[in-house]
C-alpha cells in the first residue's frame, strides 16, 4: 500500500463539493489517493466514491482506495492493523472535510466536526510521519476585519458566524499540533467556490446559487399569479412585459458597496495541485479572486438569466428597506446569512498563491460562466439530482 514519495495522498471530505473535484484532479495527475470518510446510510464509502467517479467521468482503476474512518474516535476508529497499514502509506494528507453550516443553533455540531474531531486526524498525521498536511480552511477565517487580509495566521476575535469561527480555531489547533509533531503544514484558504467554469458542473448549490434560486422561485410565484389572473401581483407592482419578462420590484439592501469573492472549482483544484507540488511549509495561501464581481454585476446577470427586471440594490450602513413588499421581505430573510459576503470590501492578499501559481488567476466571472453554472444548477434541480451518475 506504500506509495512513491510525494505521489500518495490521503484525502478527507472527498464526497463533498471541493473534495470530489480535488479527488478527480489528483487522480488525473496520477496520484494514488486514499480517501478517509464515512458511509452514508446503507451506502458504503466505496460505493459513494464509485458513484462520484462515474459522475466525474474518471476511471480511477487501482489509484483510488476507500477507508471508512470515524474522526471522533482514537486511531480514526480503525483497529490496530488497519491503522498500522494506513500509517504505512506515508503520504501527504489533505483535510478537506468540514461542516459548512452557518447557523448558531448548529454550533455544537459544527465545532465537533471542524475542531474537536481534528485530534484523531492530527494524531494520525504525527503517527504516520505524514510528508505534509494541507488543511482546507476558508478565506473568511479572517473573521470581521477590514482592509487587506494577509496570508498570515488569524488574529480576529469576532466572526460573522460559527463556521468562520470554527475554521479559525481549527487553523490554530492544527498549526500548534504540527509545530509539536514536526509535520509540515500548509493552510489553503479558498473564498466562495462555484461550479466548473467551463462545464458549470457542481455538487453543492449554496451561497450565490441559493440567492439566484430564491429569486427564481419568487419570480415563479408572481409570474404564475399573473398568468392565472390572480391579480395580487399587480397590487405589489409586479407585471409581465409583452416580451414575457417579469417586472419584479425587489430592493436588496446591503450595508456598503463591495464585491463577492467567487472562484470556480477548477481554479481551486489547479491551485491546490500547484501548492501540493511545492515543498514549502508553514504557509498560508489565499485561493481567491483578484478581481471579484460586485453585486450590481451579479444582479444584472441574475435578471438576464431569470428573465426578470426590477431588482435594485440599495446601499445603507444601518438602514433597512422601508415598507417591504412580500417578495422583498422573504428574500431579505433568505439571503440574510450571506449578506456579509455580498458586499465585501476586504482585499485578500494573494502574494504567496500568486508566486506559486506563476500568476495564474481565477477567470473573470463573465455572464457566460454564470449562465453555464446556473443552467447546470437548474438542470439538476438546484442539487436534487446533482452527483448522480
Amino acid at each position, binding site marked *: 500500500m506504500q506509495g512513491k514519495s510525494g505521489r500518495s495522498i490521503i484525502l478527507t471530505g472527498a464526497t463533498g463539493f471541493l473534495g470530489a473535484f480535488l479527488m478527480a484532479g489528483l487522480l488525473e495527475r496520477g496520484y494514488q489517493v486514499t480517501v478517509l470518510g464515512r458511509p452514508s446510510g446503507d451506502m458504503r464509502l466505496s460505493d459513494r466514491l464509485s458513484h462520484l467517479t462515474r459522475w466525474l467521468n474518471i476511471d480511477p482503476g487501482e489509484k483510488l482506495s476507500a477507508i471508512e474512518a470515524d474522526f471522533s474516535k482514537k486511531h480514526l476508529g480503525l483497529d490496530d492493523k488497519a491503522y498500522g497499514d494506513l500509517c504505512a502509506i506515508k503520504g501527504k494528507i489533505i483535510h478537506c472535510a468540514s461542516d459548512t453550516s452557518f447557523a448558531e443553533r448548529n454550533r455544537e455540531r459544527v465545532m465537533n466536526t471542524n475542531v474537536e474531531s481534528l485530534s484523531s486526524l492530527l494524531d494520525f498525521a504525527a503517527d504516520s510521519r505524514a510528508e505534509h498536511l494541507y488543511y482546507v480552511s476558508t478565506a473568511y477565517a479572517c473573521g470581521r476585519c477590514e482592509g487587506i487580509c494577509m496570508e498570515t495566521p488569524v488574529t480576529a476575535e469576532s466572526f460573522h458566524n460559527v463556521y468562520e469561527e470554527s475554521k479559525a480555531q481549527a487553523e490554530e489547533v492544527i498549526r500548534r499540533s504540527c509545530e509539536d509533531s514536526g509535520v509540515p503544514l500548509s493552510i489553503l484558504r479558498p473564498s466562495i467556490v462555484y461550479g466548473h467554469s467551463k462545464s458549470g458542473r457542481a455538487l453543492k448549490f449554496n451561497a450565490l446559487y441559493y440567492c439566484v434560486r430564491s429569486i427564481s*422561485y419568487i419570480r415563479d410565484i408572481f409570474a404564475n399569479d399573473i398568468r392565472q389572473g390572480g391579480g*395580487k401581483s399587480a397590487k405589489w407592482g409586479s407585471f409581465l412585459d409583452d416580451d414575457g419578462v417579469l417586472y419584479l420590484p425587489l430592493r436588496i439592501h446591503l450595508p456598503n458597496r463591495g464585491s463577492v469573492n467567487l472562484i470556480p472549482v477548477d481554479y481551486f483544484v489547479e491551485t491546490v495541485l500547484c501548492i501540493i507540488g511545492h515543498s514549502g511549509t508553514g504557509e498560508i495561501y489565499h485561493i481567491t479572486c483578484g478581481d471579484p464581481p460586485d453585486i450590481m454585476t451579479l444582479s444584472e446577470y441574475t435578471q438576464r438569466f431569470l428573465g426578470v427586471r426590477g431588482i435594485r440594490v440599495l446601499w445603507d450602513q444601518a438602514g433597512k428597506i422601508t415598507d417591504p413588499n412580500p417578495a422583498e*421581505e422573504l428574500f431579505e*430573510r*433568505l439571503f440574510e446569512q450571506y449578506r456579509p459576503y455580498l458586499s465585501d470590501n476586504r482585499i485578500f492578499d494573494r502574494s504567496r498563491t500568486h508566486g506559486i501559481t506563476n500568476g495564474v488567476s481565477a477567470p473573470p466571472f463573465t455572464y457566460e460562466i454564470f449562465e453555464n453554472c446556473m443552467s447546470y444548477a437548474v438542470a439538476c434541480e438546484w442539487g436534487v439530482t446533482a452527483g448522480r451518475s
Partner: protein
Amino acid sequence: MKLHPVTADEGGVLVPFESLENALGFAKKCSIRHIGLAIGILGEEFISSFIAPTKKLADEARVVFARKMCMPYLVLLIGDKYALRSVREMGYPVIDQKLFKTLYQGLPSLNSAEWLELLGELTDDEPFSYLKLGQFGELAEIALAPSPAQAAKDIDPDLRPFFERLYLRPEMNDLVWLNTFRIQSARYNREKPTVGLVVYLPVDTSLITEIQAGLQDIAQRNHLKGRLGFITPFDNGKRCVWEYDYYYDHNDPDDMVRIQQTTHEAGVLLDEYSVKTGTVKQVRYLVNRGCCRKENLLYT
C-alpha cells in the same frame, strides 16, 4: 369530558416544531401556565388528515409538512384572544387562522410549491422564523391561490360543485370548528382502519420516545405501519394522553392476523412499562371502569 364556558373570541393556532422534544416542551409550558383551552401535539399523520379533504392530498400534505417544510410536529392550540396573544409573546412562530385557511384552500398547489423547499433549507437560528414575516401570509396567498374551487380541485368531478359550495363555508377552515366537531378524527381512518393505543403517562420526552421506539419496532416486525397519533397534556403539564396508532387492512385476513399479534405484543410492552415505572397506564384499564372525568382516570 370537562365542560367550560365558551367565549366569543376563541381561535386556534398551529405551532410547528422540528422535534417531538420541543413540541412537548411547548405543550407542557402552556399546560403549566394554563394557556389555552385545548392543546394537542399532532404527528405527521394527524397533520395531514387534519388539513386535507382527500386521501391523495393527505399523502401530499404529509410530504410537504414533514419533509419540505421540516415540520413533522404541529401543536394545535385552541384558546381565547389572551391565550393566543400569550403564544405570540412566548416568541413562537405560528400558523394562524388566516394562514391556515390559505394552506387549507391552497393545498393542491402546495405540493408543487418549490419555494417551500427554500424555507425548509433555511439554516437560520430560529426554525420557522419566516412565519413571523409580516407579509408571509400575503405571499402564501399569491403563491397558492387559495379558493374553495382550488381546495376541491382534486375531488371527483361529479362531486366537485358540492364540495366547492361546502368549502365556501367558513367553518370548513376554522381551526376551532374543525376541532370541536372532530372533523379531523372523522378523516383519520380514510387511509386504513387503525388500532389506537391510548396511554396515560408523564410528559417525559425520553420515556415517550423510548416507548414509541418499542411500539414502532413491533410494527416493523409484524409488517404493519405504526405512527404517533397525538399527545395532549393535562393536569398542569404533569401528565398527558398519548395515542399511538397501528394501521391495518380489515379486508386482508393476513393483516388481521398481524394486527392481533401486534396489539398483543404492544399490550405486553405497555404493561411492562406500567410495572417498571408505576406511572404509565393504558386507557383500557381505566375507561372500562366507567370513569368519565380525566381526574378520575388519572388517579384511579
